[in-house]
Each structure stands twice: as C-alpha cells, then as structure tokens.
C-alpha cells in the first residue's frame, strides 16, 4: 500500500522525532537540524550541512587528510605523495580507493604505494622538517622517474608548527624547480573530508598553476575541442568509460583530474577550452579559479544512467559547434540499443524497488537518475560532507517527500532503514555489513563494491547488473531461520 506524498511527509516527521528521542536534549536539537523531508518548490532540501559532527556518535565522515591525499592528490600517478606524520593514515588509505591507472608501479607510477615519514616521538619533540628534507633526497635517489612530490600533512604537523612550505621551497629549488607541493590537510581541520578537497585544490592553484610561466605554450597543438575531465577519480575505471564518450563525440580530453592523472595533465589544463566537472563538491574550487584566472568555462555533468548521460552529453556539446552537437547525437544514438537492451533485461527485475542512499561527493543526487532508468525509486538520501549548494542541486533530482539526512549517524541510519524497509541500501564499507546482517541487500557506492566502472554507457550496464545481483540474490531468502 503506497502512501500519498502528504502521508509520507507526516510519516517522515514522526520518524525523525522518534529517532531524536534517544539523544540528550542538546544533541537532539543539533541533530534535528540535519534531518528533514524535501518539500517540492523549495530551493534546497531544508537541512543544515557542513557543520561539525556531534562528538560520540558514529559519524561516517572522514577527515581533511582523507579529502586531500585519499581523494584529490593520491590518484596523480607519476608523483609521490608522502603521508607526513605517523604511520597510520597512510596505511589505512593505502590503495583502498581503487583509483585505476596505467603505469609501472614503483618505477614511473606510485598510486598503490604508501610513502610515509613514520613519525616517532622524537620527531614530535624536535620537529620533522629535517626528516622531511632527507625523505625528499631519498625519494630522488630511489625513485628517479617521479615527476613531483606532495607532502600530505597529518594531524601532528600543524600542531607542532613544522614549516613544510619552507622545506618544499628549498628542495624544489635544489632539484631545479621540481614540483614539490606542501598540503596543509591535517585531519583536525574543518568538519569532514570536504575541507581537504578545498585545501588540495588551493595547493594546486598555488604550487602548480602559479609556478607555471604564463606565456608558456601548450606542450600539444591546441584545438577548439580541448576539454579537461575534472573530478573523476577513476574508481574501477569510471573516468575511462567517461572519457571514451567525450572523445567519441569529437572532443579531445587533454587532462584527467585526478584518476589516472599526471602532473603534466594538471599543468595542461589552463589550455583547455572547457572544464567538464563530475564531482562538483571536490573540485568546484579549482574550476572556479580556472574560470576567473584563465577564462575557462566549466560545466557540471552526470554520467550515471542513459537519461542523465544523454542530457549531459547535449549540455557539454552546447558549448561547442555543430560538429560536436552532431557528435553527441551520434554517440547517444550509437549506445541507445545497448541501453535499451540493458533496461529490457533488468528493469522487469527491479521495477518499483525502493532505495536508500548515503554517500559522499555527488552520488547522493547523481545516481538517482540511474536508479530511475531501471524503474527504481530513491526514498531517502543524504551527504556525508555536502554543503548547502549540494543540497540545492539535489532538488533537481529528488521527489517531493524524500527523506533527507545530513551527516547521518549510524544509529539514525539503522532506525530509518528499519522503518522504511527499502529493497536496497547503497552506502559505504562501514555501513555494508550492518544492513546485510539486518537482511537488506546492499551495494557499496564509494568503491562500487569492488566492481565497476559505473560511469558512462559501459558503466551503466555494470551498474544495472550489480543492482540486480544485490537485490535478487537468493541469499536474502535465507536470512530468516525457518523453524523460528
């Protein structure tokens, strides 16, 4: 029996009130502002965001280091990223995000390695600047084909007052202008990984772009069709299944940020004609900067599911001439039979299924279209580290009455799922096993559950298959003990 929109809103309100009852008053008041229901016609989702998590709850959020090293800088493949500080942060983020790349690891590419200054007590007491300088020397000896170094600060660096900028500058000079980027992404900064994205963007501006000779010609012959992919981390190959579409429609991708990216591509980007931005949250800053400083326009796009892919291809093409517009139509037409075949195969198995999402970046809104292409409905969504502009953008995707939960706590998420009984929960590794134990089909939407890619037309086929395998797995019929 389905509820009317008004009934849904009433139910959500009652549910939120019930969930808040467990908290001490002060916390209930704080958390209450992050939980709500989308009201059609409003300019955002009506929840507060991007403020400090409440202490003592099981927040799903990470830290600034995770945003900088784990997301933005880490995938730049020909640079060495030093996790500067104690051993742990680098160890836990070691190769955990599936940023695919092509290269000879340990020789000319370094993404799936863990470089750390492994801080000891004496480094805390006496400072780590000398050690950092020595580390850069050792990197130059052992990894001569590296094209640059970043210094990703962990918590203690800022607290003990190390001057990583001075070390980076001095070493860069010593190594003839080598790119060495200090990044002040200490984990205690900001309220989530989001500030780490911003800090990393700023460090690209200050330590890559601003070091370039403004009159330097592009190292390639420019064309009117040069674009850069911004904010695709190539998880399971996402950026590749996106790039191939852009190239098929006649564009030339001169840089990939940052999945399978290289420092040369970062440096090329100011020569692009258009920046196409997938993860708005993590890379809008540098896109805006390039617009202001170099006059490069940027356009957001969504490559999840055929409806949104077609819309996005047309929107991107709208920035170019008829050749590219025709190219977009050609690409859409080319893949249409594949998409129809995928939908014909999977939609009957997924029609009417309800989904609850909780992810980071762009996914809490962008994947909704892909689910809808398969006849599924997203009944609840929220961001780990979204800002108000993310919740504004979400209004274009969600239906009236959708439950919205910002920086959801483990407790709230469990209660919401228990009450709304979706057919699929789509979130991260920390949530996966909780919901599977409860008998809910689950897909990890950070790592694609080790599958993927999910972007682009090739990716949508995999997405559809994976949602089907999750929801229709025979295992869910086995969860109840038959004799009980």
């Amino acid at each position, binding site marked *: 029996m389905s509820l009317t929109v008004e009934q849904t809103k009433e139910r959500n309100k009652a549910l939120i009130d019930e969930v808040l009852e467990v908290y001490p008053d002060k916390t209930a008041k704080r958390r209450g502002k992050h939980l709500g229901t989308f009201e059609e016609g409003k300019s955002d989702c009506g929840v507060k965001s991007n403020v400090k998590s409440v202490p003592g709850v099981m927040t799903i959020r990470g830290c600034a280091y995770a945003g900088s090293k784990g997301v933005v800088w880490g995938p730049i493949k020909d640079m060495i990223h030093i996790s500067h500080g104690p051993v*742990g942060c680098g160890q836990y983020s070691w190769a955990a995000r599936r940023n695919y790349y092509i290269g000879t690891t340990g020789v000319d590419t370094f993404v799936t390695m863990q470089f750390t200054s492994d801080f*000891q007590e004496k480094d805390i007491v006496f400072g780590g600047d000398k050690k950092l300088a020595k580390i850069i020397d050792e990197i130059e000896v052992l990894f001569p084909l590296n094209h640059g170094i970043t210094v990703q600060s962990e918590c203690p660096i800022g607290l003990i007052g190390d001057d990583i900028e001075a070390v980076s500058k001095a070493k860069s000079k010593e190594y003839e202008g080598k790119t060495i980027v200090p990044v002040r992404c200490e984990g205690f900064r900001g309220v989530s990984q989001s500030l780490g994205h911003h800090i990393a963007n700023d460090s690209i501006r200050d330590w890559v772009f601003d070091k370039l000779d403004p009159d330097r010609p592009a190292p390639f012959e420019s064309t009117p069709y040069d674009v850069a992919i911004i904010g695709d981390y190539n998880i399971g*190959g996402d950026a590749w299944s996106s790039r191939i579409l852009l190239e098929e429609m006649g564009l030339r*991708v001169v840089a990939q940020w940052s999945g399978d990216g290289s420092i040369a591509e970062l440096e090329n980007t100011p020569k692009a004609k258009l920046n196409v931005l997938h993860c708005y949250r993590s890379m809008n800053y540098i896109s805006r900067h390039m617009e202001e400083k170099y006059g490069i326009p940027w356009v957001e796009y969504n490559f999840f599911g055929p409806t949104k892919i077609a819309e996005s291809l047309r929107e991107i093409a709208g920035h170019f001439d008829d050749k590219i517009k025709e190219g977009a139509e050609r690409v859409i037409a080319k893949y249409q039979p594949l998409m129809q075949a995928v939908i014909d*195969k999977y939609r009957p198995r997924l029609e009417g299924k309800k989904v609850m999402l909780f992810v980071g970046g762009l996914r809490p809104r962008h994947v909704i279209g892909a689910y809808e292409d398969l006849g599924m409905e997203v009944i609840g969504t929220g961001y780990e580290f979204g800002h108000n502009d993310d919740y504004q953008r979400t209004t274009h995707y969600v239906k009236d009455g959708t439950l919205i939960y910002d920086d959801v706590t483990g407790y709230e998420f469990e209660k919401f799922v228990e009450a709304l009984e979706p057919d699929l929960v789509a979130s991260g*590794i920390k949530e996966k096993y909780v919901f599977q134990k409860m008998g809910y089909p689950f897909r990890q939407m950070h790592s694609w559950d080790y599958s993927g890619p999910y972007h682009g037309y090739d990716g949508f086929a995999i997405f*559809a298959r994976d949602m089907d395998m999750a929801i229709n797995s025979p295992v869910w019929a086995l969860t109840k003990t038959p004799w009980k």
Partner: protein
Amino acid sequence: MSQNADNVVDHFNLFRSPEYVDMFKTKKENFENAEPTDRVEEIREWTKTWDYREKNFARDSLTVNPAKACQPLGAVFVAVGFESTLPFVHGSQGCVAYYRSHFSRHFKEPSSCVSSSMTEDAAVFGGLNNMIDGLANAYSMYKPKMIAVSTTCMAEVIGDDLNAFIKNAKEKGSVPEEFDVPFAHTPAFVGSHITGYDNALLGVIKHFWDGKAGTVPVPERVPNEKINFVGGFDGYTVGNQREIKRIFDLMGVEHTLLCDASDVWDTPTDGEFRMYDGGTTLEDAAAALNAKATVSMQEYCTSKTLEFCASKGQEVLAFNHPVGVAGTDQFLMGISKLTGKEIPEALAKERGRLVDAIADSSAHIHGKKFAIYGDPDLCYGLAAFLLELGAEPTHVLATNGGKDWAEKMQALFDSSPFGKGCHAYAGKDLWHMRSLLFTEPVDFLIGNTYGKYLERDTGTPLIRIGFPVFDRHHHHRYPVWGYQGAMNVLVWILDKIFDEIDKNTIVPAKTDYSFDIIR
C-alpha cells in the same frame, strides 16, 4: 562497442578492448609527459640490482610500504573484545573512519567505534568538551556496558589527560559515576598497533584490578586456579579464540579469555544487527585478577600487560604466536604445567594427525626458501613452523620488530640446520623486502594482502597469512593455533606449492609431461 547486455563485461576485461587500449595509448603519448619505455625498463631493471638494494637499505628517513599500523587500531581491537563495550577514540574523527573500514575490510563484519570528533577549536582549547558531550551521546545512543577510551596522535600532541577528562565528564553527568570507562593513551607516533593493543588491554585490566581510577578501593587478590588467556592483535581471532576455548575445554582448564572478539567479528546474518556480541564479560575481566596465571600468545604484543599481571602476583607465560607441532607442544605443556591438568589423549591424537600430515607432504616443502613478513610474534611462529617442515625461512621481516626480536629470531635460526643463512630484518619495510626478493630470491612469500605487489613485481608466489587480508575471503574463520590450526597453515602452504607446480607444467605438448594427476 565493448559492452554487452547479455554478458556484462566489467573492469577485468572491459578495458582490454581495442578502443580503450587505443585511448590509453593516445593519452599517454600526447598528454602524460610519460617517461620513454626504455627508460622505464632501464630503471625497473636497476631496482632489481644489488646496487639498488644498497641504496635502498641506506635510507634512514623514508618509509615505503610499511608492514605495521598505528597504536589506536590495536586499542579499538581490544575494546571490541569485551562484552557490550563501545570503543571511543578521543581525537579527530577521520581516524575512526579508517579503523572501522580497515577492520570491516578484513573481517567482512561491521566494526563499531565512535570518536570525540575534535577539530580546530579542540586543538586550541583542548578536547574536554568533546569528551563530556561525546561520552554522554555515546552512552545514551548505543547503551554500552562499558566505554573504552583511547587517543589519537592529535589528542596526544596537545596533551589531553584522559584520567582527568573522564573524571570531569562523570562529574558533569555524561555517564553515571559507577559506569566503567577504562582508558589508555595510545599515541600513533609511538610503537605500532601491537603497542596499542598492549596499552589498551593494560588500561582495561588496570581499571578493574586497580580500583577503577581511584573511585573504589583496590580489590584484594584472592588467587584461584583459573588461567587468563590473551591472544594479542590477531587477524585470525575468530578461528583462533574458538580453537583455544575448545582446547581448554578438552583439557578441563578453567579459563578467562581476556579480549575475546571472536563473536563480535563473526555475527550471523539472520535479520538482526548485533552491535555487541560475545566478548569477555566485565565480571570476568574484574575477576581475572584472581587468576593463577596470565598466558599470552604474543609476547611482543603484551609486554606491559604481562608485567602488570606479574606485579599482582600472577604467574605469567608468553609465547610467540606458536604455529606447528613444537610450538603447540610447548603451549600445551606450558598450560599443563601451570594448571596441573593433563593433556588429554584427544589432543595427542590431533598432534599425531598433524605429524602424519607433515610426513605425507614435507617432501614438497623440504629445502624450499621462504620470505615472511608481519608482526614480530607471527613472524616467529611461522618461521619456527617452516624450520619444522624442513623449509628455510630465509628473510623474516617485521617493520614493528626491534633489536631484541631480531636477536630472538637469530637464536631460532641458529637452533636448526635449516636456519643457516636466514636473516631477520627488524624495522624494515616491504620496499626493503622487494630488494631482498630480487637480490636473494626465495621460492615463496608469506604475508598479508599487501604482498600481492611483491608477488607481481618479483614473481614470488604469495601465501596470504597475516593481517590484513582484504582480497581473499573468510580465512580469519580458520584457526592457525593448535594442531588443527597448524594443519590449516600447512594446507595453505601446500595449496600454493601445488598451484605453482601445476602452473609450471601446464603448457600442452611442451611441459605437461609433468602435469601429474597424483602429487
């Protein structure tokens, strides 16, 4: 078009289709400023040389691919091993996201843990308010019986005092006065996850045995016949703890497993999420003071804990992650000596079956060279077992091993003719191991998941034993302790050896004369 609705192709094969291969080529040639192929090959070859090895071993500041994690991870491990206990990490919240992910990826289980979410303001003013609010929230939401607090490097650098903070929080009513909040300072820049295990376990037992941070009188020890058993940080805790319980039950040894995470990291899928399951009860943790002795399976993981137990008048006994016949013999005889209980025939039979298995198979292992890396105790246990099998544990490396460990390893090597030429590498990392494998190759490598990069680069087949193992499923459910555990380890080693023999003899009409059906 590469994709196909009838047979969906994912990343394993999708990107090998010609249009993607062309795309990669164009990207590399035009935009990546890639190094010339011959230059890459030249450097790659150089990294295999003794010259590179010498330069690699000369570094003293850079760490590359370390085989260790940080203290707080060990502290969280300890907390989940106690009944209805919520791990609470005082510091920045991102760390907790990492610990939870790390454990969940290994055990394929939920890992519950909260943090006090300290940010810039706490860095300036201290994290007291975070502790006060955090304990109150965690207590009301997750209804734990105990909250075990540990720190991150951030809280340690700014010098937050847990004892005072917890007292203060209790005064403010965050949790009831009598509620158990043991704590441990676990700076990430000291030691490794095994140090954190030691500190956190010490924190818990100290709390109960020393009068709950001065709030109740120090309990009088009334010795009894029970044995405390401590497993240490152990990726096989699910299989191992259950095996140890079985062995103790067979022997009739009254025991308390201190920090038993075997149930919480192995909960059923039956429609219910159990945030807490099993674990050492708080009553047992308190009563463990009265035990006759405390036995640790991992000496390097429990040195402070055992010292404290001894100071209370308990006998203490430590092993180095015993694996194999002699290792298990020593363990059982140690327990027997402590308790006066005889080792039952059933275990003697299990021993015989293990020896039988070794006799059946040791020809395939005899004289093979192995490299091992991992935690110091695990390395010792595995090396001892390999010597017993007639294999040569040629390179044994522990990033978190010290000089004393290296000496102990050397003594082990010296005790066997198969240990000749074997070497222990304390404080070295997996990039050192890479040089070792190129310059002094071995037949097999034993270690955690990260060894797959070494397997790829050096061609040394990897046998996955250790923590974490992310890319193979469910091995943590099998014990590696006891005679039955050794049997598992033996089979894992043999399976890899036979797979390699088969791979080496599989080319039709060329090498497959040895592709034998009977091995």
